């Protein structure tokens, strides 16, 4: 099978629109959380979220008009606009703009979302109720379908290769990148534009996740403190939004065109809990098996892992993941750094795994582990360095990114510092 590398990165996150600005702010310990102001939260238990900062596009603000024409924006849910932004950034970064029919057919898209267009579904259901079926827009269906993020990206950039989408809740982004790497390794495509996108910050999703008792509700007056993975005072995750997209490319193809290489995708593992619809199995068996599978595919021992970007949502499940990682690492637990960047950007659901894969690649590039902010008092003693508050400069040759989703769906991806 062919070796597979990452040659382009793009993201839209609550810390900023763009990879560099997000990474700078992440390393400086900033939080993307704030009070929700754009819709009524007075009757919702969670009144905070990590939202995109909208503006004219300067200073890291997100200006949708830069990424999609206003007349097209009207037809789609935000998750599609976020994907368009991240995908164009990634393709520009990779300097891959196929124009020949052959190159276009060798370039595909695999972008997923955990939920898709909930906002539009909610609004259209009300419209149907109040005004009847003749008022339902012809763009209602294509503007909500999860695979239409990839559909729009393929149309904009002329990508005629495999066009696929993943829907595995909070594991979506990791599965998308892992599956895309396999498509490239198998030769189905030379280049895949892969990642996840999500726009869940609306009343319906906030009410639904609150009903699952998944959201933080004790920090409505201090939102920047709410996402605190591994901390004893954590009380749920903070909803985030945005997108992460990477350009996954066959090594030989990247070398032939002189592309810059962020890292190699060497391992990918998947597992299912077969336990509960929202809770992970308490022994961490699913997480352990998917990390083990990823390491086996990478052909490395647990001791070789330098950095883990944890799933770490700031819920009770944090300790289950930590237990699984300790079991995996055994005596080498003290040599790894593991952080949850959700402490800063919140939980981007279907986009989380893709954004966190990018952070893992940047950790390799810059030889620095981003911090877990708000980790004042760990709820459990561990030999693992959880990188509290400030980033850790250290050697990082291998980074592992974990994602676990509702339904008991788990994915781990291993990235390696690129060497010939």
């Amino acid at each position: 099978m062919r070796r597979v590398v990452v040659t382009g990165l793009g993201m839209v996150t609550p810390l900023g629109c763009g990879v560099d600005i997000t990474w700078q702010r992440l390393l400086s310990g900033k939080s993307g959380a704030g009070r929700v102001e754009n819709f009524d939260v007075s009757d919702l238990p969670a009144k905070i979220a990590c939202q995109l900062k909208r503006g004219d596009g300067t200073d890291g603000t997100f200006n949708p008009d830069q990424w999609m024409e206003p007349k097209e924006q009207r037809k789609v849910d935000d998750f599609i606009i976020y994907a368009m932004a991240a995908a164009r950034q990634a393709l520009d970064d990779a300097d891959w703009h196929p124009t020949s029919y052959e190159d276009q057919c060798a370039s595909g898209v695999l972008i997923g979302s955990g939920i898709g267009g909930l906002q539009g579904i909610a609004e259209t259901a009300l419209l149907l109720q109040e005004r009847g079926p003749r008022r339902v827009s012809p763009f209602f269906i294509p503007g909500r379908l999860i695979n239409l993020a990839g559909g729009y990206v393929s149309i904009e950039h002329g990508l005629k290769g495999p066009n696929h989408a993943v829907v595995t809740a909070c594991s979506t982004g990791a599965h998308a990148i892992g599956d895309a790497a396999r498509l490239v390794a198998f030769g189905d495509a030379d280049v895949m534009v892969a990642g996840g996108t999500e726009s869940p910050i609306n009343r319906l999703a906030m009410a639904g996740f609150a009903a699952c008792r998944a959201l933080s509700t004790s920090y409505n007056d201090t939102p920047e403190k709410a996402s605190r993975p591994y901390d004893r005072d954590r009380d749920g995750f903070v909803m985030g939004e945005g997108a992460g997209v990477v350009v996954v490319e066959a090594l030989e193809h990247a070398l032939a065109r002189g592309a810059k290489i962020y890292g190699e995708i060497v391992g990918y593992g998947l597992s299912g809990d077969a336990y509960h619809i929202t809770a992970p199995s308490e022994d961490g068996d699913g997480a352990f098996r998917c990390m083990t599978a990823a390491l086996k595919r990478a052909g490395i021992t647990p001791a070789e892992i330098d950095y883990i970007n944890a799933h770490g949502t700031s819920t009770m499940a944090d300790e289950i993941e930590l237990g699984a990682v300790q079991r995996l690492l055994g005596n080498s637990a003290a040599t790894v750094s593991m952080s949850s960047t959700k402490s800063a950007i919140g939980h981007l659901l279907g986009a989380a795994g893709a954004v966190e894969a990018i952070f893992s690649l940047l950790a390799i590039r810059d030889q620095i582990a981003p911090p877990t902010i708000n980790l004042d008092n760990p709820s459990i003693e561990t030999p693992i360095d959880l990188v509290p508050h400030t980033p850790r400069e250290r050697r990082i040759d291998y980074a592992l990114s974990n994602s676990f989703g509702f339904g008991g769906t788990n994915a781990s991806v291993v990235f390696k510092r690129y060497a010939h």
Partner: protein
Amino acid sequence: MSDIAERVKKIVAEHLGVEPEKVTENASFIDDLGADSLDTVELVMAFEEAFNCEIPDDAAETILTVGDAINFLEKNAA
């Protein structure tokens, strides 16, 4: 220009994201203004909404240009 014509042109320019001066009565939604078949369905819905009338599917199929829409609505709008 009638009031209806002016309103139709405004709706077309807004929905299709085109310059108002391109929205002439001879302009075809698909050939001249960049609409696809879904855009035309939505345009008809926008006319129904704005003029408080119902445009049956068989009539909608004959509305291909800005002028077609103006003519239909001048005859049928409430």
